């Protein structure tokens, strides 16, 4: 495992990142190195800055200090290699448009200014929808989708971006069992293709099952690395403080 990951620059390298909203620091001096090809969960309590971290990597929030590099270069030069899945609740699902239309938006970056999506974009979008079991919904109005279906549409949109790094903000939030399985399958497939996948995740229980790399975050970076080394009770206590949610002992590394 380590062989591929240590060669060449890191997929994502975050150095001394500090972000504040109205004087209140959300991220404080965060260093995080995400090797190429890992399937990583970012976990931490509410308000730990998980979403902000992803947004800072994408240049959506301006940091007070620090630097982010994607494969050794600033994000601006590497946009086409990064795909983004925002939180489902961040958009108005009553927007007048269809599933296929939303998925094709994933190609807009590659198309650039003024060029319209055409047959090729349509084909790619249909293929992505098929991967998520959503091809029958292509012409469906997005306001008619269930929460899980909405999430799969967002994932399909990221898929057509055909990137090397995937940043996903809580894709498992409030989805049904079918969608959860579809997402897990997709994550594993991306991982097999040596893509780097970073997922903001809430359910500590499933971290060892779904991911092999983890970052623990609570304003500061507490720890990051392989799940079997880093996902320990000790680190979780440091991250969540006193109010650590109940978690099965077997799920933790080094508890046996």
């Amino acid at each position, binding site marked *: 495992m380590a062989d591929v990951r240590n060669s060449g620059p890191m997929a994502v390298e975050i150095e001394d990142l500090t972000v504040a909203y*109205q004087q209140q620091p959300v991220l404080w001096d965060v260093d995080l190195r995400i090797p190429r090809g890992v399937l990583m969960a970012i976990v931490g309590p509410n308000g730990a800055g998980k979403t902000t971290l992803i*947004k800072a990597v*994408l*240049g*959506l929030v301006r940091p007070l200090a620090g630097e982010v590099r994607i494969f050794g270069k600033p994000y*601006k030069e590497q*946009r086409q290699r*990064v795909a*983004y899945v*925002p939180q489902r609740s*961040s*958009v*108005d699902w009553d*927007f*007048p*448009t*269809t599933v296929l*239309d*939303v998925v094709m*938006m994933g190609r*807009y*970056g590659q*198309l650039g*200014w*003024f*060029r*319209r*999506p055409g047959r090729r974009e349509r084909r790619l979008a249909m293929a992505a929808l098929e991967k998520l079991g959503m091809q029958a919904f292509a012409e469906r*109005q997005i*306001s008619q989708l269930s929460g899980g279906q909405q999430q799969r549409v967002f994932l399909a*949109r990221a898929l057509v971006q055909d990137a090397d790094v995937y940043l996903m903000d809580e894709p498992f939030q409030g989805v049904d069992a079918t969608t959860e399985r579809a997402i897990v399958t997709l994550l594993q497939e991306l991982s097999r293709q040596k893509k780097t996948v970073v997922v903001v995740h809430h359910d500590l229980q499933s971290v060892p099952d779904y991911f092999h790399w983890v970052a623990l975050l609570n304003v500061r970076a507490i720890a990051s690395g392989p799940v079997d080394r880093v996902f320990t009770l000790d680190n979780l206590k440091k991250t969540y403080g006193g109010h650590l949610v109940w978690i099965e002992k077997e799920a933790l590394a080094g508890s046996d």
Partner: protein
Amino acid sequence: MELLQTIGIVFGDYTLRTVLLGALILGGVSGVLGALALLRRQSLLGDTISHAALPGIAMAFLLSGSKSSLVLLSGAALSGWLATLFMLQVVRTSRIKDDTALGLVLSVFFGFGLVLLTFIQKRPDAAQAGLDKFLFGQAATLMAEDVTIMAWLSALVFVLVVLFWKELKVYLFDSGFAESLGFPTRWLDILLLSLLVITIVIGLQTVGVVLMSAMVVAPAAAARQWTHRLERMVLLAGLFGMFAGVSGSLTSSLVPRLPTGPTIVVVATIMVLCSLLFAPARGILWNRFRLKRQQKSIQVHIALLTLLDLAEHHRDYRHQHSLEVVRAVLPRTTHLSRTLKELEERGWITVPRKGFVALTARGVEVARRFRENQEVAG
């Protein structure tokens, strides 16, 4: 004969022809831009920009002493645009929320505009008369040159909307995603708002600062009811706007003492009301009808299942149940006679004698299949 005469009057009359053409252009462009503004989810925006145009008109007159529409409308555009940028800046750099910022900018600019207007009107020279036509609009003052300017401006707006269609669409739906793709959403927003400023300026002379916001909101709100596609919504809003413009100005020309601008707005508002009521899928009547139908179908199915239970209890599918028993076992909210009639019409039950019902063979079959499906789903 009468119709032909009317048409003859309309197209023979220079003033009316000008007004109609102006209203057509203004309706079309405000429908299209209004649809985009509506999806930006700030309905007060049109209101703010149009009110904020007033001080610009007064200032332009004070500085130039001219009353040509070109000069006055340039002033309107400039002050509407400054108000927009000011509003964006307030939201971006302070903790003031956008609705507060909109209200703030609206009242400050409009108040200042009224102060200037009053100051101008109190001056001794008589040259100032007529600026207040921009408050409620005065279509009759439209000249052919004005309509030409309106046409060029709306052509500019349309071309830019078509050119930046894809970018505006992704920005409106998911601005964070658009930004991550590398589209500068702040500039796209400024582009959209600038187009809205131009749109409002196009309508000021006809409809006025107070009512122009209705022209931006109404056709768009009506169009939203009829379609689920952005392209169609924008086109439809444009057509609705044109219709409101033309029919409003026609009506006001045929009925004496009816002002054009407000009549156009009233027509647009009636279109919104009709759309809210009658549009399929989103309309109020349609939803009520669908709910009723659903309610009826659920009641019918529950009644059928209950009858099957009852029959199984008697170990006899053809058992004749008295209506009192049926009424007692069905949910209290069931509309009994209507439900039983529906069951009979579908051939699922029979009425062997007065006051009794029994399942048919077909009814038993349907009920069983329905129960199985339910169990699978559960």
